[in-house]
């Protein structure tokens, strides 16, 4: 009788353990996939942003004859965005681009004809749209990394993660400097 009870208890413990392992295995995989998916979200927006730049340069070329340096900075930032290899490099290049564009849009205030150009206005909206989307997808990426790291660094997830060979992921850093508004001199 005692033996049967012990056997039942042992089976129940094994079943409970298997269920917990199953749950954590799926949770860890799901959260890791969410990180990868949110990175591809950022990537889509970065590409779209890079694609918009040549159109923008074309639109302003005719108007901004004396702002060669401003336009060159935008081109330079775009090139480093296109050639970025790691997520953090892409984000840094994008911050550079954001800064260069801010200067360009600030300078454009001095050209009333350009300000009245609907094509230019549309591009301006589109570019600030991609900028917001990058900010939010970066936030979502960091949220995803945070919940993944929390899962695999706290008990009992820690234990399963080690068996699965999972390591914590890095969040995307935003340099303090990129939050400042660039100075513009006319």
């Amino acid at each position, binding site marked *: 009788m005692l033996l049967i009870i012990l056997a039942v208890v042992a089976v129940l413990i094994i079943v409970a353990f298997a269920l917990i392992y199953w749950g954590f295995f799926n949770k860890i995989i799901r959260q890791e996939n969410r990180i990868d998916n949110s990175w591809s*979200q950022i990537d889509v927006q970065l590409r779209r942003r890079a694609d918009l730049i040549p159109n923008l340069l074309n639109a302003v070329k005719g108007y901004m004859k004396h702002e060669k340096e401003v336009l060159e900075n935008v081109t330079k930032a775009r090139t480093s965005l296109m050639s970025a290899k790691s997520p953090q490099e892409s984000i840094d290049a994008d911050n550079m681009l954001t800064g260069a564009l801010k200067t360009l849009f600030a300078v454009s205030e001095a050209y009333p004809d350009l300000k009245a150009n609907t094509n230019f206005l549309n591009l301006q*909206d589109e570019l600030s*749209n991609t900028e*917001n*989307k990058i900010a*939010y*997808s970066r*936030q*979502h990426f960091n949220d*995803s990394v945070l919940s993944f790291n929390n899962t695999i660094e706290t008990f009992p997830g820690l234990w399963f993660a080690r068996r699965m060979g999972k390591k914590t992921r890095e969040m995307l850093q935003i340099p303090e400097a990129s939050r400042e508004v660039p100075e513009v001199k006319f």
Partner: protein
Amino acid sequence: MAEKMMIEDHIRKNKRLTVVVCVMMALLFIAVVFAVGYIFVGNIYISLIFALPIALVYVLVTYSFSVHTVLSAAKARPANPQIREEKLLIYKVEDMAIAAGLPKPKVYVQDSEYINAFATGKKPENSVICVTTGALRKLNQEELEGVMAHEMSHIQNRDILIATVIIGVVGAISLIAEILFYSMFWGGAGRSRGGRNDGNVIMIVIAILFVILAPIFARLVYLMISRKREYLADSSGAYLTRNPNGLAQALEKIKGDHPTTKPKGSKTIAPLYISNPFKSNARTSIWSTHPPIDERIKRLRSM
């Protein structure tokens, strides 16, 4: 970081309360069904046979009210990307969908002087966010973002689904109570209680009173859930934008905004809006679908 954790705590607390209230609702429904069974035949289980199909049909009917029904009740039209402010609105909704990690809802616009917005759709995949032209004109981009985050949170928290099912249960309770009332009026219930003594009569009176009061109580529970979900959408919206200020400012604008025209559209969709267009926001009442606007602003400011 400390700020973030606080918002998360708000969210967790609100979710727990909603579960408690939903369980209360289910218990109330079962109690009504049993009481009706007791009154009619002295057997509490018999009534399940007719009450369960009634409840099921009711919930299914409310469930089948599609996104389309709501949108045509609100006389809404799809947002036009050719108009700049509506294009920026579409962008904002997309931003919030990205922040929440959800598919993009369709964006609609309703012609109205009032600053308001609502979300509908039982699944995130076919959800819709609708904004009034008044909101587009009077809110700045930060405030509009706060409102969109609030609506996106309703979608994320499946509030529309919860409300639909609960409205169904409230309706079913009311219907059962009504059937009982009319059948007693026509003397239908008298026959089955023929051979009982006086003690039972008192019990039956109590049961009848309970069944009559139940729909009122069910409605109050529903309104309580509705208000809880509003607070929840406020705090999870603040979590999406990391900026409780945007929504707080928007609510302040809604509070100070008194258009002269009457709000358009059907009253039945009032609980969906970010603030009830048919009621003054100042008074607190257990009959409100939304919490008092000052309390909402206070909570957002403290995040």
